[in-house]
């Protein structure tokens, strides 16, 4: 009886893992079939207005790249503060708030940026979209930096100080170097997450059918356009949405796996 209960339980557990993997396979196979079915190399050469995706892919990279350019230094600096400078309650408070911010609904962040940037500047813009994504990225970078720096042995810091280096030199030249790989992994995972975000961009950057590098106007976004295209009645729009989804997922998974690969190589 006990052994039977054990077998049933183990069987159910394996079944759950199979269900989880089946969902992943189902989604990936769907994307592969539908996406490759409408995939064509010319998608990379034409803009959305001509039935391609070039402007959207470049736009999404610019939005996420700019968000990373804002979010990484701020997040790392805040993480360094929490781990290296902060003592006691204030550092703990910031760590807790950052944890909460990490799980804040992305659409609410979009609404916040809409109210503080889009409304005062008179319209949606690439800048607003990038800032919304940066706000999503900062807490993740803080969390990684905080965790990775905490793994660096105390002796390394003491050795640096003993050699007469100032504290910020020790942090930049020794501590960060020692934690480099872990931080890079965290940053790549965070980048993979924000490049696939839609909700914070809906009313901040919106999207555009044309190629644009002008960050002061509505900016082409792959994810927002997927949402628009998928909701259109024409079959051709939906096919394009599938092709775009396929490209987006491949990008996200490649970035994600690259991040995991560098940590693994180090071990």
């Amino acid at each position, binding site marked *: 009886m006990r052994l039977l209960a054990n077998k049933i339980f183990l069987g159910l557990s394996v079944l759950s893992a199979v269900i989880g993997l089946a969902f992943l396979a189902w989604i990936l196979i769907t994307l592969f079939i539908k996406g490759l079915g409408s995939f064509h190399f010319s998608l990379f050469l034409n803009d959305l207005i001509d039935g391609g995706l070039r402007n959207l892919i470049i736009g999404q990279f610019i939005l996420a790249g700019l968000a990373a350019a804002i979010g990484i230094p701020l997040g790392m600096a805040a993480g360094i503060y929490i781990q290296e400078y902060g003592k006691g309650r204030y550092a703990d408070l910031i760590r807790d708030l950052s944890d909460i911010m990490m799980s*804040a609904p992305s659409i609410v962040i979009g609404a916040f940026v809409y109210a503080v940037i889009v409304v005062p500047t008179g319209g949606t813009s690439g800048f607003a979209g990038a800032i919304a994504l940066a706000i999503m990225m900062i807490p993740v970078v803080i969390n990684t930096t905080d965790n990775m720096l905490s793994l660096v042995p105390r002796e390394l810091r003491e050795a640096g100080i003993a050699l007469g280096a100032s504290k910020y030199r020790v942090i930049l030249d020794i501590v960060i170097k020692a934690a480099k790989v872990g931080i890079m992994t965290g940053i790549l995972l965070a980048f993979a997450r924000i490049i696939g975000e839609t909700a914070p961009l809906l009313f901040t950057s919106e999207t555009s059918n044309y190629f644009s590098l002008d960050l002061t106007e509505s900016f082409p976004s792959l994810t927002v356009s997927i949402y628009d295209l998928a909701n259109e009645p024409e079959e051709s729009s939906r096919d394009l949405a599938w092709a775009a989804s396929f490209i987006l997922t491949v990008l996200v998974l490649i970035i994600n796996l690259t991040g995991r690969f560098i940590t693994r190589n180090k071990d």
Partner: protein
Amino acid sequence: MEKIFQKLAISSATLVFVILVGIFLTLFSAAKPAIDEFGFDFITNPDWNKEVSVQNPNAEITEGDMSNESIDEDNDMMLDEDDMMIEDEDDSLSKTIYGGLVPIVGTLLTTLIALAFALPIAMGIAVFLAEIAPKNISHIVGIAIELLAAIPSIIFGMWGLYYFAPIIADLVGGYQVSLLTAGLVLGVMILPFMAAITRDSMNTTPGVLKESAYALGATKFEVIKDIIFPYSKTGIIGSIILALGRALGETMAVAFLIGSIFVLPTAINSPTISIPVAMANNFGEASGLGESALFYLALILFVISFAVISIAKFYFLKKAN
């Protein structure tokens, strides 16, 4: 230089505080007109964008009523703008009222369905990863599950709408876009997240405890049930609540599947709307009181998820460590 660096670090840290407080204050001030107008009745009022005459608040003007039930979102918003103009010109006759009950109920119910669906499977996966699978298989399956978590939510939405929902609708009946299908797809989304943190909690059980139980002749099931679960209970509860917080604010996957109409669901397979979806679909076109009401919804969502996440992180997960 040292001073400058330190200042930069502390300012960046303070920025987190500023942004979080900023979000709260901004949402509050943008929601203020709606809060003043509707008060806390907003939460219990099921009518969204409904025209009522001012002399007799119970008399409904059919035009507004039609826009209220119109399924086509774009059409809905066009009517809304027309209504606003009528309101401006003819202030004494009618006004538009907004109530948040439908999206609030929709948000809570989809989250509940997602939780009910994801919980047993996520626990099974966590047990599989932490206790059953050999190390290398556990590693590979673990990465696969985390990849599922990395897939953008809009992909879940499209897959859910075109491939998952038709099957569910065939099985259960009713609409393809409904509370049920939205909740289930949401469940698939939070599944890997919940499984991963539950596994981490289970892994904190000291090996000595497990080995003693095995030495006494306990089966794997008994070790998991009587040793690991009790030991990592608070951590597991924390991860469930954290996943719940995620589900509350999820927009894109739900937007494809919930149907996006401001009508209280009569059954589990009928369409309705959630707070994030109400914002995603109506924000761009809304103005005046309508926009303020959306901010009111955003504020409610922010406060709920703030509370849920705080409870998970600071009560359960802190205690677990």
